């Protein structure tokens, strides 16, 4: 157990270091981009006086390095600062957006992860027969088509033609859970299609790998039913690669769905981040970048830990 604690501490420390480096990268990236926040806010209607007034008010006249350390100092005290563009508290705005993103990712994961694993099991059970081929064909087709195209096709048929669910999925606080779920049903379906194939294929491959083992043969000779063998003996031994892919896809559902957010007008983190990148609003970009990086690092850590727990050989190294 102490080994696990040590491992955990090691991983967290590495993660924090990584986050620090990420923040430097993001900061320098936004500095390199042409134009500054004052120009971006005022756009084509910028006059030299208005620009100068705005730069002074936003503290853009300070050198970049100093601005970075000001920001870092605030962060260490738990203060994400305020957005340069709107003057709003970043933590508060991000909180709501992050909530929305997690809400969408959660429901997409709740549907896609069990479905992918189940389909993987079925594909193994009927290996090289028509259910396997059908599942592979459908999921591979859905991952090969760009997600925005699936989204537009879904909008056209489900929303415009049949009017079963809305195409604009702007959820808000006055909606009940049922209304919210109905509102996000099309994006959840599209995201499920997008992430399904990866997880399904990995489940199938990992289990097939285990199926070659001697103990599976033993189980077969004992006369166990094929599905019992897969479920009880093969799956637990192939959890490690599967969980890795599941976590990667969950991370994608949190940080990589900006296209879906734009197409469905979903008020999530992706859209929020893009808006602020195009306005060079560095504090917000920093905060979003850190959160995204933290999600990636965190989920990967979970994947590692789960695979260690699931594998006695990794738990008790020689």
């Amino acid at each position, binding site marked *: 157990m102490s080994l696990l604690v040590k491992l955990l501490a090691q991983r967290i420390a590495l993660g924090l270091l990584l986050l620090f480096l990420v923040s430097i990268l993001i900061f320098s990236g936004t500095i390199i*981009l042409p134009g500054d926040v004052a120009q*971006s806010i005022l756009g084509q209607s910028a006059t030299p006086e208005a620009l100068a007034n*705005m730069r002074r008010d936003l503290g853009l006249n300070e050198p970049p390095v100093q601005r970075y350390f000001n920001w870092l100092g605030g962060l260490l005290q738990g203060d994400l600062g305020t957005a340069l563009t709107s003057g709003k508290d970043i933590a508060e705005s991000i909180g709501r957006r992050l909530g929305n993103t997690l809400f969408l990712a959660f429901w997409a994961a709740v549907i896609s992860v069990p479905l992918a694993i189940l389909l993987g099991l079925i594909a193994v059970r009927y290996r090289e027969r028509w259910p396997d081929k059908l599942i592979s064909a459908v999921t591979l087709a859905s991952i090969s088509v760009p997600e925005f195209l699936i989204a*537009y096709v879904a909008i056209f048929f489900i929303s415009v033609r049949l009017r079963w669910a809305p195409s*604009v999925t702007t959820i808000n606080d006055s909606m009940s859970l049922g209304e919210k779920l109905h509102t996000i049903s099309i994006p959840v379906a599209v995201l499920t299609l997008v992430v399904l194939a990866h997880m399904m294929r990995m489940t199938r491959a990992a289990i097939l790998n285990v199926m070659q083992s001697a103990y599976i043969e033993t189980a077969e000779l004992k006369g166990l039913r094929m599905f019992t063998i897969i479920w009880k003996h093969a799956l637990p031994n192939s959890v490690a690669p599967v969980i890795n892919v599941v976590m990667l896809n969950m991370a994608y559902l949190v940080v990589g769905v900006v296209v879906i957010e734009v197409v469905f007008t979903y008020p999530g983190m992706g859209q929020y981040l893009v808006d602020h990148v195009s306005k060079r609003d560095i504090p917000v970009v920093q905060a979003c970048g850190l959160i995204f990086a933290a999600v990636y690092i965190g989920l990967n850590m979970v994947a590692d830990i789960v695979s260690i727990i699931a594998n006695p050989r990794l738990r008790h190294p020689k």
Partner: protein
Amino acid sequence: MNEELKFLSRQAALGTISRRKFLGRAGALGVSAAAASTMLAGAVHAAGPQKGGTLRIGLQGGSTTDSLDPALAANTTAVNLIRMWGEPLVELTDDGGLQGKVAESFEASADATTWTFTIRKGITFSNGQEVTAADAAATLDRHAGEESKSGALGLLRDIKNVSTNGRDVVIELNNGNADLPYLMSDYHLIIQPNGGKDAPDAAIGTGPYIMKEVDMGVRFVAEKNPNYWGEIGHAEAIEMLVINDNTARVAALQSGQVDIIDRVPPRTAGLVARAPGITVSSTAGPGHYVFIAHVNTAPFDNPDLMMALKYGINRQEMVDKILFGYGSVGNDSPINAAYPMYEEMEQREYDPEKAAEYFKKSGHEGPVLLRTSDNSFPGAPDAAALFQQSLKAAGIELEIKREPNDGYWSEVWNNKPFCTSYWGGRSTQDQMFTTAYLSTADWNDTRYKSDSFDKLLIAARAELDQDKRKKMYADMGMMVRNESGLICPMFNDFVDAHTDKIGGWVEGVAGFSLMNGYAAQRMWVTG
């Protein structure tokens, strides 16, 4: 049969029978769905505004980074939003004249250097406070002051002093300006309590609605202001959704999630209009797409080369292929019929032979470099390619350099010698010329510097004789057309669309898209 249809359409407009039922009955009478829809729309209008309901509007342009401070408004969503809760002193009428809003009347001194605006009696801000002349004066002060970040700052430079006298706001100018009231209709100049100096983004004004929910760049809900003084504001509530993706915005209208949208992409507008129950409206405006060259920079300081470029552009082709017909041809002047004192001038046509002749005369050799980007106007890279082809016929080589959208307005526009851009236009010739063609203008993006033009512009400003003034503007238009670095192939129409669940659309309203941003307040829900 005709009478029966009329009766039915009136019933449908009043909500006694459903729209679907009306279309069905009309169909039974042998009327096509499209004709019946048009008829219903007419009847809805004739029945007069209906009160109540929620009107939902889908808009392009909003961003999470926007602010509610009218001084910082810089996109169409912000303009529509401002129209909910606030009002300027005066506003454009449908045909481009002026009507009072917060000010009930205004008058000028004989030389147009002193203007007096009288504040409407007994109107209140949505916080209950009465509107005073001091509030209006403070508003001007905030936008024109040294500390200002306002987009209206450039308009207000000529103001010498603002004072109050009872209900009057008195504005004194350095030079006479017959168009000052037009400047006061600018959407930045919303009258706020104490000019918005205390709380610029509190969204407290005299408008027909009060903001209830604000989620920047996402969703807004406004409810009717029970104490509003005016006639508009029919729906009980207005829900505004920011839908930046073109396809998503059109789909939202088609699936009935919103009742009205702006910026229907011209490419698909024809298809959208074919759908039952949807009306696409195209409104001519002062906005134009331009190719601008710095006439003080080589090689564009060569007037013969400029002329060659101006004769080498096929304007009609651009209107057909870039605007898909939703627009009109330009004439290398920023002024079109949308301006109050427009006078027609001879149309410059595509003439490759003349272009070749001027090109030869200019002595220029090698390609001409044009910079463009997707966001300089919709279809700009395609327009640049068309320009390249039409110049090729005249033996002129155009080299196109594609620039990134990011930073285009700070790095390329008004910075590099030849690029694509757009102008939204202004409400008067004076404003347009002052903004972009006066020698000292910050946004003189063609670097056109002419003493005689400047003198004429200042003189026209104070000229109260309309005929003389019209002549002066015609002369100035001609100067810009022949001498400046402006190549203006087309004026773009605003293309909006609404469903037949709402009534009250008025065609051809002057100003911005969506009936100058007042569509949501002036239209009503029919059920």
